[in-house]
């Protein structure tokens, strides 16, 4: 009976997931951003990175993730707000983008959010940086959460260079 119960839960979950999105929410200053939870591989505390020469300012360097070299993008710097001065309290969210693994440096990871896909708003036209880096905006508990376009965060490093 218990096994059946679990299966029911599971099917509930899949049914629900068709219309909802689970996000990992993190913050830069007071603003909350989110990425889809399925892309997140790991969350780790900032522990330094080896700087890379001759690359964009917002590429903080590379770290060793169990034998693989993973580049770290400073999301604040990517938004054009200057380099983060990271401490041990800063967080690196490791994600997979396409077939690559990257890390983004953020101030803190706050929550796992479940939002309805219907609640996603388009990014208001105006600033090209916003429309380029955000896929959309959702409201959660009355607060705005920006959905990060990871591909844009990463590919910018190439095209801008």
């Amino acid at each position, binding site marked *: 009976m218990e096994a059946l119960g679990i299966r029911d839960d599971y099917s509930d979950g899949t049914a629900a997931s068709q219309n909802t999105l689970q996000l990992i929410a993190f913050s830069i200053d007071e603003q909350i951003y989110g990425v889809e939870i399925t892309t997140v591989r790991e969350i780790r505390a900032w522990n330094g990175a080896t700087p*890379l*020469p*001759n690359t964009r300012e917002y*590429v903080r360097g590379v770290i*060793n993730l169990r*034998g693989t*070299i993973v580049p770290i993008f400073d999301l604040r710097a990517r938004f054009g707000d200057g380099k983060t001065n990271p401490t041990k309290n800063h967080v690196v969210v490791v994600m997979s983008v396409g077939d*690559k693994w990257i890390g983004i440096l953020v101030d803190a990871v706050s929550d796992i959010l479940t939002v309805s896909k219907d609640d996603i708003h388009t990014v208001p036209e105006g600033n090209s940086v916003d429309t380029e880096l955000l896929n959309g905006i959702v409201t959660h508990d009355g607060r705005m959460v920006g959905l990060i376009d990871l591909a844009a965060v990463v590919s910018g490093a190439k095209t801008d260079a």
Partner: protein
Amino acid sequence: MSDLDEFKATYFDECSELLLELEEQFSAIQEGDRDSERLNAVFRAIHSIKGGGGAFGFDGLVKFAHSFETLLDYVRDGKVELSEDVIVLCIRSIDIVADFVGAARTGDALAASYGAVEKAQFDALARGQSAGAASTDDEPMDDFDIDFTPVAVNLERELPMASTAPATDGMTRWTIGFTPFPTLYERANDPLLLFRELGMLGTMTVTPRLKPMPKLADFDPFGVYCAWDIELVSDRASADTIREVFEFVDGDCAITIEMHEGSAPAAIALDDDDLPSFAALAEMAKAERKFIATGDADDMGAGADLSALLDDTKAEAAAPAPLHLVAEAAPAPATAANRDRSTDAPEDSASSGRPVGMQSIRVDLDKVDRVVNMVGELVITQSMLTQQMDDAIRDRYQELVRGIEVLAQTTRGLQDAVMAIRAQPVKSVFSRMPRLVRELASKTGKKIKLETIGENTEIDKTVIEQLSDPLTHMVRNSADHGIESPEKRVSRGKPEVGTVRLSAEQAGGNILIIVEDDGGGINRDRVLEIARERGVVGPDQQMTDEQIDNLIFAPGFSTASEVSDISGRGVGMDVVLSNIKKIGGSVHVRSWTGKGTRMTLRLPLTLAVLDVMLVKVAGSPYVIPLSSIVETIQNSRADFGHMPSGGKVLQVRGEYVQVVDLATRFEMTTDQAEDSRFVVLCEAEGNSKIALVVDDIIGQQQVVIKSLEENFERIDGIAGGTILGDGNVALIVDVQSLKSGTAHQTAA
């Protein structure tokens, strides 16, 4: 036979893959995907199966695959429509091919008519009839591939016999029909040699089948007017061994092989086992007979014989042919001949029930590389742990220390085991050399003997792949430049035949490959003269003998006047050096005047681990491959000169070398005092040097190369990354790109 068995095993592994591919492609085709690339893939797969099968003499398989392939070829050309029927037939036929492969692997005999219905359908389709019925309507066969069906007919009768091995103690009598095509002679084959080889298998009688000779005026000197029938009585011949004799003329002649035993031909017994398909066999035989009747028999001079042979088959099916009766009824001559060869064990035929199943698995090299990398990582971490243990720790944590020591052992074992997966014997490279030396000897009129030692020494696969070219060049050099002409050798009191010795051995973490010759040695005066002429060496520069010897690796040095068409094809020994350096190796040459030359190649066991020097630039760790470092100098002792551009040059032993400050180059700031920094003198490709200024030198170590591009992108001046013992990432300095990028950098 063990080599052959290895090849067979590989072939069967490949077959499994190809059959899977066939399945995949056809299921896509069945779903309506008519991409021509799919048909090509299918065609290639069948062709590969057929080709390998032919090499091992799996005749039933080859015959069937050939018909399959012919049909596919016609489908590809649009001559046969890829209808639903045809697809279904093809899919069914994949299973038949799989059964043939399976039977060949286990050595089991399939019924002679196995797949005959499908084959007949193929043949019918290829002739432009619809699938589902192999009718015998009279239809022209314009495009018929004329040299395939006759062979197929003969194989048809040979197949079941080959798979029933002859009685172990008895002699077997074989009738071999050999009809050369003109192409056989055009390719300079001599039937006599083939007969001689065949004669090694047993007692042989050769009877020519002369065609009527034309009048002298009509006589074509290159024409074929003779075919042969060979009667072979042997205790060890099998269809395979006989076929092997004719292997090199395959396709240039028509071969028929028949075996006669004391009992009724095996074909009949087998057919009896499989009665329902008997009708199919008859039908097919009819279909093929029809081909022969309509085929242009005179064109090959073989068709007539073949239809006669086909009649034999039919006759045999009813009763042994008169000719064969002799052999079958009279075992006496066989036993007489047996005395000669009684000591020879009968050839182990394919039917001897070898264990089935995959002896090996084919693994994507990437997967192996991943394991190799991780083990490399483990080794480095482990050695770091060991280094951290001081006496205090040893005293205090004895159990821990013991654990780490065991870990060290296990890690080393693991590393060896993993490396062994990728290791291959150098034999694969060495085995190309004898031919090279033979050709060279005959071109130059020298007498050269090649000795190879240690050809089972194993090196990493990637190293082996890169080794072939440089080694070929070195051997060529030894044979061409090293060994003197026979007259000169005799006058010097040496044996007429010169020796080139190629040896491989493992020495620590390296593989040494030595190319030695007992020739005249390097002509140092001449080398130095040329080097001076070409500005490789300064006019007043004094050099030791050893330095002079190694000049042959200097770029731009080629002893042009001695260059022959063999060695001097624009590739100098400097290319050898740079190739070897690319795989992290080194070359060293020593020469003894009048006695010979020895070139020693030192290669890393693996490319996965790199020897590096760890340095610090602006607080970040960088590593420089040890193979490119010439020397390190303290800044305070270095002799710098200033250039108008503001750049620096380093004077070292009469040479001026471009200086690149890595901190500046990498746009970082360092607070290290200039004088306490270091210069690392590096050698880039082609002997050009570059001096890199770094903040500090930490030491030497081994690292595992990691890709930056895997998750990021290529970065100028950086060849990759690596993970240090403390878990941090260090970047590998790309000396070559820094060197070539300096001009651009100073201009910018």
